[in-house]
């Protein structure tokens, strides 16, 4: 048992040594037994291993020190202390190489550090002076740095925000969680949605206002941690600007829409224009001549339905005789062209004339032609009528009856007919040379009349015809009657003038005036002669009265004296002859008196007055001798009043009453009736007797001077009485007539003109009769 326990102890030592070795303790060795047994071999090997390991350890330890030295240097480097250099053993092993490298690096770092310091100063200057906010935060979102631009933009100073959370300082509530999550995500996954991207977002300012910023966050590694550099740009202005741009864009959009709508509307309008155009319009395929579209007007005008029309070709509209010409001309019609007047045929066969305007265009991808067909049939008719009218006018214009000329505003005569040229003595070449001017041929004294005429034309379009003169080319004048009218409706005066040569008329007028003057002279001469004759007549009357009556008186007187003184010596025959002489002398005296009385009526001026006719007639009857009235039954009806010349009316009544008495005197029971009746509303006087009457066959002679219907031996009279009555009635503007039957009496009727008769107005005071003593 002793052995075994020993070995076990030895083995336990070996194991402990191995454990020490494992722990890196190489200083203890195993004691050896002399036995040289296996354990001793192992122990010896172990001791040797311990020595080797120790040696190895010593080397390693030394190397470790050298490495630690290098590490120290390196650590210094990392703490930006580049002042120390690594020492080398000079063995040239890899640690020395490493140290040399490290030293070279240190040198280089110092070099770069120096450069970095410069660079840092630059960066700092950039940081300080950057126009954008530059904010550094750590991975916990705490603000590390805050540049002046950030202070300017957000209002916070760097010392106010350093160490505070960025999200509480800058971010609106709704962004804060997202921001923190973003950082967390980056820290765990290395991913960042917004990192190194520029995003726009709102940011808070110190004064609680919100501004719009553009944010760019870049992560940076600092030591083991990340930090983030935020660049923030105030884009409020830009945003506003952008918004304006957006707004502008929107407006633009709207405009574009509007414009589009307009274009559409325009399209509709054109469509409408096409559809509802009163002119027939259609679109046709240039190649096939097939109609592609047509408007209502065309359908209506040509009498086809739309379906019919759209199956037709342009040729179908043409009469056969027109087709060749159409095909010839319709091949190429670029652009818009008036193709002239064509014969078209309607559905009902009527041929019309259409003036066609064609416009080449694209229509649904085809080369098409828009055709406007203006029916000019009526126009052609109208033009024909106009041409006819013009031809007629031309005939009038060229007629030799009236001069015509056309003139323009400045008075230039632009056209004239030959007659007018003849009138003024100009040639047609002078006219066409525009050398004939209205003002040039108007004498100065008619300038005003011409201005007046122009004013009339301006106001009414025409002027009253008036007489003037034109100066002929040779300086003589021609009297004319002219009428002028405006032929242009515009304000510019342009007109036509009709000219009548009134030379002949003027000459005749002159002649007539001369004749009138001559006539006047002759009338005056005649009047003088008449006055003379009147005076002669008066003296004749006087002579007749005086000279004829004196011898008559002598004849009568001496006969009487003969009778008185020598009657005893005369036999009966002698006495009868003497009586005959006396009778004739007396009768001739009566004739002379009546004749003078009659002729006196003619020159006597009427002197009207209001007359009581009944009273006047009664006076007359009183004055008539009883011998004359004898036994006649005289009836006087009411005769009223009348306006007349008293003396003359009395004379008329007297003569008529005397006649009535005279011619009824031989009746057994003579009757005379004087009265007044209304005949056709005119007061009419009548004197009726139942005497001898007269034969109506001789009525025309009744009122003649010296005309008698009875013999002198039957009824005494001179034949002047009724002539005087008629003259009186006529001078009063009245009428006298009679009815009679032989042996049955007569009725004389008469009317008077009354107060209004012009004859009375001419009367004057000088007509008063002078009293006469018989």
């Amino acid at each position, binding site marked *: 048992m002793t052995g075994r326990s020993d070995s076990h102890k030895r083995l336990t030592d070996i194991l402990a040594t191995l454990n020490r070795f494992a722990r890196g303790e190489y200083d203890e060795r195993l004691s050896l037994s002399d036995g040289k047994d296996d354990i001793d071999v192992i122990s010896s090997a172990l001791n040797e291993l311990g020595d080797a390991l120790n040696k190895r350890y010593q080397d390693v330890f030394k190397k470790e020190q050298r490495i630690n030295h290098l590490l120290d240097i390196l650590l210094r480097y990392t703490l930006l202390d580049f002042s120390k250099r690594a020492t080398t053993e000079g063995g040239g092993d890899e640690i020395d190489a490493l140290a040399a490298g490290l030293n070279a690096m240190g040198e280089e770092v110092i070099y770069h550090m120096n450069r970095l310091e410069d660079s840092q100063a630059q960066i700092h200057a950039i940081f300080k002076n950057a126009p954008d906010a530059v904010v550094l935060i750590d991975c916990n979102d705490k603000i590390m740095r805050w540049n002046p631009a950030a202070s300017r933009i957000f209002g916070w100073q760097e010392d106010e925000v350093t160490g505070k959370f960025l999200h509480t300082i800058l971010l609106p509530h709704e962004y804060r969680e997202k921001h923190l999550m973003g950082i967390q995500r980056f820290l765990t996954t290395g991913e960042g949605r917004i990192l190194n991207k520029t995003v726009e977002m709102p940011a808070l300012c110190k004064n609680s206002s919100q501004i719009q910023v553009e944010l760019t966050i870049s992560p940076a590694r600092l030591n083991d941690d990340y930090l983030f550099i935020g660049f923030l740009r105030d884009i409020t202005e830009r945003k506003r600007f952008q918004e304006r741009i957006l707004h502008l864009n929107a407006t633009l959009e709207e405009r574009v829409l509007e414009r589009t709508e307009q274009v559409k509307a325009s399209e509709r309008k054109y469509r409408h224009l096409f559809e509802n155009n009163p002119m027939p319009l259609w679109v046709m395929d240039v190649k096939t001549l097939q109609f592609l579209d047509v408007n209502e007007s065309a359908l209506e005008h040509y009498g086809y339905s739309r379906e019919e029309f759209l199956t037709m070709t342009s040729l179908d509209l043409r009469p056969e005789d027109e087709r060749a010409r159409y095909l010839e001309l319709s091949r190429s019609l670029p652009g818009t062209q008036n193709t002239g007047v064509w014969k078209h045929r309607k559905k009902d066969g009527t041929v019309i004339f259409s003036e066609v305007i064609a416009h080449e265009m694209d229509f649904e991808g085809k080369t098409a032609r828009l055709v406007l067909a203006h029916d000019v049939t009526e126009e052609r008719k109208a033009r024909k009528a106009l041409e006819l009218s013009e031809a007629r006018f031309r005939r009038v214009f060229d007629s030799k009856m009236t001069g015509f000329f056309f003139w323009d505003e400045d008075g230039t005569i632009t056209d004239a007919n030959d007659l007018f040229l003849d009138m003024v003595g100009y040639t047609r070449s002078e006219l066409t040379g525009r050398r004939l001017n209205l003002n040039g041929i108007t004498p100065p004294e008619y300038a005003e009349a011409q201005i007046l005429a122009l004013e009339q034309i301006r106001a009414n379009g025409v002027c009253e015809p008036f007489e003037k003169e034109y100066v002929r080319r040779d300086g003589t004048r021609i009297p004319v009657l002219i009428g002028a009218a405006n032929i242009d409706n515009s304000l510019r005066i342009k007109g036509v003038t009709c000219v009548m040569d009134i030379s002949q008329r003027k000459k005749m007028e002159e002649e007539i005036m001369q004749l009138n003057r001559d006539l006047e002279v002759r009338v005056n001469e005649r009047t003088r002669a008449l006055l003379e004759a009147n005076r002669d007549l008066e003296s004749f009357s006087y002579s007749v009265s*005086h000279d004829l009556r*004196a011898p008559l*008186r*002598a004849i009568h*007187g001496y006969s009487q004296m003969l009778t008185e003184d020598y009657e005893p010596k005369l036999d009966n025959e002698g006495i009868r002859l003497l009586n005959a002489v*006396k009778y004739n002398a007396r009768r001739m*005296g009566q004739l002379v008196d009546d004749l003078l009385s009659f002729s006196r009526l003619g020159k006597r001026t009427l002197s009207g007055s209001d007359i009581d006719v009944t009273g006047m007639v009664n006076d007359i009857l009183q004055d008539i001798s009883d011998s004359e009235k004898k036994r006649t039954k005289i009836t006087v009806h009411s005769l009223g009043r009348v306006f007349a010349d008293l003396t003359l009316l009395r004379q008329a009544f007297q003569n008529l009453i005397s006649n009535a008495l005279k011619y009824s005197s031989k009746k057994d029971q003579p009757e005379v009736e004087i009265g007044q009746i209304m005949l056709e509303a005119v007061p009419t006087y009548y004197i009726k007797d139942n005497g001898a009457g007269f034969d109506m066959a001789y009525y025309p002679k009744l009122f003649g001077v010296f005309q008698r219907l009875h013999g002198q031996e039957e009824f005494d009279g001179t034949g002047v009485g009724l002539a005087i009555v008629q003259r009186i009635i006529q001078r009063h503007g009245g009428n006298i007539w009679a009815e009679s039957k032989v042996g049955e009496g007569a009725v004389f009727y008469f009317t008077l003109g009354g107060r209004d008769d012009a004859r009375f107005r001419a009367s004057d005071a000088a007509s008063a009769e002078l009293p*006469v*003593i018989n």
Partner: protein
Amino acid sequence: MIRENPVEILLVEDNMSDAELTIRALKKKNLANNLIHLKNGAEALDFIFSQGEYSSRDINKPPKVILLDLKMPKINGLEVLARIKGDERTKMIPVVVLTSSREDPDIEACYRLGVNSYIVKPVEFDNFLKAVSELGLYWLLLNQAPLQHSTVKQNG
């Protein structure tokens, strides 16, 4: 020629027939005793104004009436009338104008000159006789002539 009896009627008439008829008519009524008939205007004026042949006549013894014909040679009736009526000494003498016709244009002139009466001599002798005799009776017997004043003197 001086008459014892003053002249009552002065007849101025150139027509001898008319004068004879007038005088006969007046004689019938016995009015022509103191009648003087003168045959023209000149004589009449000499008589009336007591001049010439009649210068010895007393102008203050005028005729009772002058019967004056108008139509006379030389000085006519109107002139005579004008002279009579234009002279204070003679204007009182009644003047009756005798004429053949009522158409005489001088009638108006006669009235203007102050004629006292105007007579158209009728053709018929009976009427003439009647007219003249009535006239004579009127002017000689019925008419009261104005008193002749002695102060009225004859002019040189």
